């Protein structure tokens, strides 16, 4: 395949759809696409991780977050933080379609845990500095790759699509580690909400700001794109009104029900902490 031919991916499709190719930032890395584009005529930075068959690290050719990708995410997010003035901090949109972090001995030796931590650090620092950080889930949002690209967002949006998946580990590996069959895992996912992979189950955990239904996620129409853009604008406005932390994930009606233990831990810990 020609080095210039991008591999089709949900992440690439939505990055292109939302930016229209405008404001592309030359990252020098084909697997991380960045655009200083606009939303509602105001600056907004879009970032996506996409497949690159020529990736110099073989374990990072299918849209995984590898070493180069994670450090590039950190670099680009920090570039935005350094560029903007305090009173005009632009939104950062993480377009999320990441199959996993890269699994390999090179990656472990060279510190992929640190590379992904650097991306986490950059996104969280942007959020704390006042950039509304919005994650838009358009495909897979898996495990450490999602931690590095999206999970530090003020608000998380997701397309309603069977291919939008959130989980801590692939089914095969999860089965091996928990000594269960894949069929048993799938059965459990139907009973135990946090074990499921699908986005409707994830929505029940209360971590999502909104799930966007009725969109053609593979070949979006111009109406679809406008609707998603409007949802991004809404999420940005909502994020600007709230504190720059992750507390909205504990306040939704779904969170109060499904994450009741998380809420209870915080309530009782605060009582005991202050009771000193």
């Amino acid at each position, binding site marked *: 395949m020609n080095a210039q031919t991008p591999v089709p991916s949900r992440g690439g499709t939505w990055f292109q759809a939302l930016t229209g190719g405008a404001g592309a930032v030359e990252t020098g890395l084909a697997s991380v696409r960045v655009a200083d584009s606009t939303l509602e005529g105001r600056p907004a930075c879009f970032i996506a991780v996409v497949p690159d068959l020529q990736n*110099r690290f073989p374990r990072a050719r299918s849209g995984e977050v590898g070493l180069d990708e994670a450090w590039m995410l950190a670099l680009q997010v920090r570039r935005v933080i350094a560029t903007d003035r305090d009173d005009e901090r632009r939104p950062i949109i993480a377009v999320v379609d990441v199959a996993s972090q890269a699994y390999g*001995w090179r990656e472990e030796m060279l*510190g992929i*845990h*640190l590379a992904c931590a650097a991306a986490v650090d950059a996104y969280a*620092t942007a959020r704390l500095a006042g950039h509304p950080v919005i994650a838009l889930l358009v495909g897979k949002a898996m495990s450490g790759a999602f931690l590095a690209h999206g999970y530090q967002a003020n608000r998380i949006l997701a397309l309603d699509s069977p291919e939008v998946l959130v989980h801590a580990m692939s089914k095969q590996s999860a089965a091996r580690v928990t000594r269960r069959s894949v069929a048993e895992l799938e059965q459990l996912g139907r009973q135990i909400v946090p074990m499921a992979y699908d986005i409707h189950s994830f929505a029940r955990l209360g971590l999502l700001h909104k799930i966007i239904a009725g969109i053609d996620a593979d070949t979006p129409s111009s109406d679809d794109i406008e609707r998603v853009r409007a949802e991004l604008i809404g999420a940005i406005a909502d994020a600007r009104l709230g504190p720059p932390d992750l507390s909205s*994930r504990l306040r939704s009606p779904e969170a109060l029900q499904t994450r009741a233990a998380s809420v209870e831990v915080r309530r009782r810990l605060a009582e005991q902490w202050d009771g000193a």
Partner: protein
Amino acid sequence: MTAERNEQGLLARQSFIEMRARERAFSVLDPGSFRELLGPFEGIKSPWLPLQGIVAQADDGAVLGLGTVDGRHALVAAIESAYQGGSMGEVSGAKIAAALELARRDCERGRPVLAVLLLETGGVRLQEANLGLAAIAEVHAGIIALRQYVPVIGVIAGMVGCFGGMSLAAALCSSLIVTRQARLGMNGPEVTEQEAGISELDASDRALIWSLMGGEQRCALGMADTLVDDDAAAIAQAVRDAVAFPAKGAERSRQVERYRARLAAIDARRPPDPHALRNLWQEGIRE
């Protein structure tokens, strides 16, 4: 050192690795200062494990306490590796995240509370999957927000090591203390073998695994700050030192240009072995 003196040293030494989480938490704080929060008698357990026929432990495998380190207010969070592999479930993750959030709140109110995290964990508890992952994201957020005010000190002693999303938490700490027995990696060797095949990594090759991600190698590469013996007194001293002499300059997770330059020096087709990497990247721990 003579063999006899060496033996005496070993006898006098108290293994940190062999301690349970609660003992570990005691041992890094000033004597008598530990006050446990959300202890086992509070009965906040995993709501998810009993649904799967697994007995839920009363503290969910995370021990929290407030105390002092050399007289300074400190939060200690210790993960119990003997329970579910030290995995992070909804409750254990929420305990650590919430404690970090309260420490930051106190810092903002002018009452600094530093944090010591005793990390011994395989990462997300897969029986609680997405809620474990969500809690780990909140732990990351908590460390980054708190680290602006006070040191957040990580300790990885072994034998479980620190993996998955919690390896990122270790990398976010202001200072990281490890033993030779410790391992620090994003993907546990079994998971890498499952995902990429045994030709990529043989998880049963212990020497190889430790050469890639063992505590000594991580220190040599500057991905950890202090290498200590498996000795409770030495680890407590290393924690006090990390509090008294905080590292200067940016945390390593903010050293983007430095690590990008290091990575650019790597030929991905013919990568160095772990020993050669030490020579290639040998340039001190922190600039």
